[in-house]
């Protein structure tokens, strides 16, 4: 088990390095890096000093090694706008995003299992006909637009919840509800279709032949098998949640990592952008490793230490 986790972690590390390389190549190969790091108004003298200080005159591979080793030592540079270490700013905003993501994913997982199972029990039944189109709609409606419509209806017209900002639990209701829609739609579809195939699988017939009740066949025999595709897709959705969080935090004025990231891009605060991106990437990879472990625990056919069967 430990070896398996280690191997997956190493693969993720490799991916983070690739991301860094892309970032590095982007900043170094597309012109003067001082353009990225300094405000546009910086004087030529300031640029020259900055370049000398950061070794921009060294060969690229030396620069890359310095760059990575700086990052490895936790040195992400200074945020130009906030005049503080970039990582500090990013870490400060982090718990808010994490809380948002946690609530969203928990709700999406629980609800999708319930709704998907109910829809699968009678394919093309009344409930299925109601739920299936709805899930496709929530999965394909743009989050930013749904957020705006929700603000207009529930905050402006009905006045049930505040339009933006945070502080009280009430402030969380609308963002979580909007953010949950996409993963909920996708995951419910996944649960439904895998439940439909699990329920018609031969082992479901064996269970019936043993005298098992319908509920037992659904919740003991079929559900456990349907969790495997659910977990795989939940991982993909969790990665997508990063995108959604950026949108939601921007619209609802949540000072989470997504908002910080977008602001830093608008302010051309490159060190802060990189710090945020790397932090988000690390979380995504940590989540993927967690999902692989969960998958391995749920599916005995996956050999720990070998490739996960997808």
């Amino acid at each position, binding site marked *: 088990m430990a070896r398996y986790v280690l191997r997956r972690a190493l693969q*993720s590390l*490799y*991916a983070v390095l*690739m*991301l860094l390389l*892309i*970032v590095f190549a*982007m*900043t170094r190969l*597309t012109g003067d890096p001082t353009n*990225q790091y300094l405000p546009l108004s910086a004087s030529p003298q300031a640029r020259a000093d900055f370049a000398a200080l950061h070794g921009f005159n060294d060969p690229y591979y030396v620069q890359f090694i310095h760059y990575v080793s700086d990052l490895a030592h936790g040195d992400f540079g200074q945020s130009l706008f906030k005049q503080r270490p970039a990582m500090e700013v990013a870490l400060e905003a982090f718990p808010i995003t994490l809380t948002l993501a946690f609530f969203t994913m928990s709700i999406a997982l629980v609800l999708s299992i319930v709704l998907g199972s109910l829809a699968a029990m009678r*394919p*093309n039944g009344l409930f299925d006909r109601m739920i299936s*189109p709805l899930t*496709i*709609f929530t*999965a*394909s*409606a*743009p*989050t*930013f*637009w*749904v957020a*705006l*419509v929700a*603000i*207009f209806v529930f905050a*402006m017209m009905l006045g049930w919840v505040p339009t933006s900002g945070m502080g009280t639990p009430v402030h969380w209701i609308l963002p979580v509800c909007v953010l949950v829609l996409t993963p909920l739609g996708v995951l419910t579809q996944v649960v439904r279709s895998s439940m*439909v*195939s699990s329920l*018609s699988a031969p082992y479901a017939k064996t269970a019936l032949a043993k005298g098992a009740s319908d509920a037992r066949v659904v919740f003991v025999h079929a559900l456990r098998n349907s969790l495997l595709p659910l977990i795989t897709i939940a991982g993909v959705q969790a*990665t*997508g949640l*990063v*995108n959604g969080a*950026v*949108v939601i935090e*921007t*619209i609802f004025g949540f000072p989470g990592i997504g908002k910080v*990231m*977008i602001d830093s*891009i*608008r302010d051309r605060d*490159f060190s802060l*952008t990189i710090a945020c*991106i790397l932090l*988000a*990437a690390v979380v*995504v*990879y940590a989540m*993927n490793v967690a999902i692989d472990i969960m998958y391995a625990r749920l599916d005995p056919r996956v050999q720990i230490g070998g490739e996960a069967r997808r």
Partner: protein
Amino acid sequence: MRQMLGRLVHDKAALVAALYLLAVVVVALVAPLIVDASLMRSNLRLRHLPPLHFDHGWWYVLGGDALGRSMLARLVVAARTTLAISFATVSLSLVIGAAIGLVAGLSNAWWSTAIMRAIDVLMSIPSLLLAMVVLFVIGASPPVVVMILTVTRIPIFARTARGQALEIRERPFVSASRVMGASSLHLLVRHMAPLALPTLFSVAALEFAQVMLAESTLTFLGIGVQPPDVTWGLMVSDGQRYLATAWWSALWPGLVIASIALAATILGNWFQVANDPVLRARSARKSRVPAAESKVASNA
């Protein structure tokens, strides 16, 4: 082909989706012919004109925007850019991804493994983050948006194509073909591509919706398409500021994005089911198989 059309007519939802997409594409294509330049000029008299009134002609039926331009005319013009970006992205990533995936699936050489490893890494990078870095550095314009979205979408097509190729190449008719002395090119053209394409097309339809959402999101966040180009995402972004006074300026473009994404998804799902006899039988809950296959089913 005729068979597919026949099945399409039987599925009402898919038929409506297909007709809707077709209509939107036609409107986008003829946009320059029907949209008068005056509709796109600012007209402060018509500023935030409320929708659903015909007093100012049917071009203003959806109201006016902050500069008094016709919402409907802008939606039509934006359709061109939005659809063109999505279409170009999906086509490019389909062609590149499918080529990579099929070749990698056919070959056992070290480089095919290496390519797929690189693809895996690319896939694991959150697409929005990658897009942000690139757009930050290079600057945003429709071609750059297409490029960056293509890169983030290639892995999906490459993986799908490779999965298909790996499955197809184990089938006995491919072995029979090899026994006859078939070249890799022959296998690729005669067996792999025809059998993998339906799946790739259905993925493309689903991806079309995803790409459009991704472009809209980037643009909405202000790091995608920039004015004077206009896409639906940009229109929602513009309208956001006037949510309290002119709700329609954000509602319509978002509704169009949602409905097109919905239609593409429905069509993609339908295509997937229509092409897979197993799924087809299951979704219809009927075994629509000729005698030969029902025998197998009854014996299984």
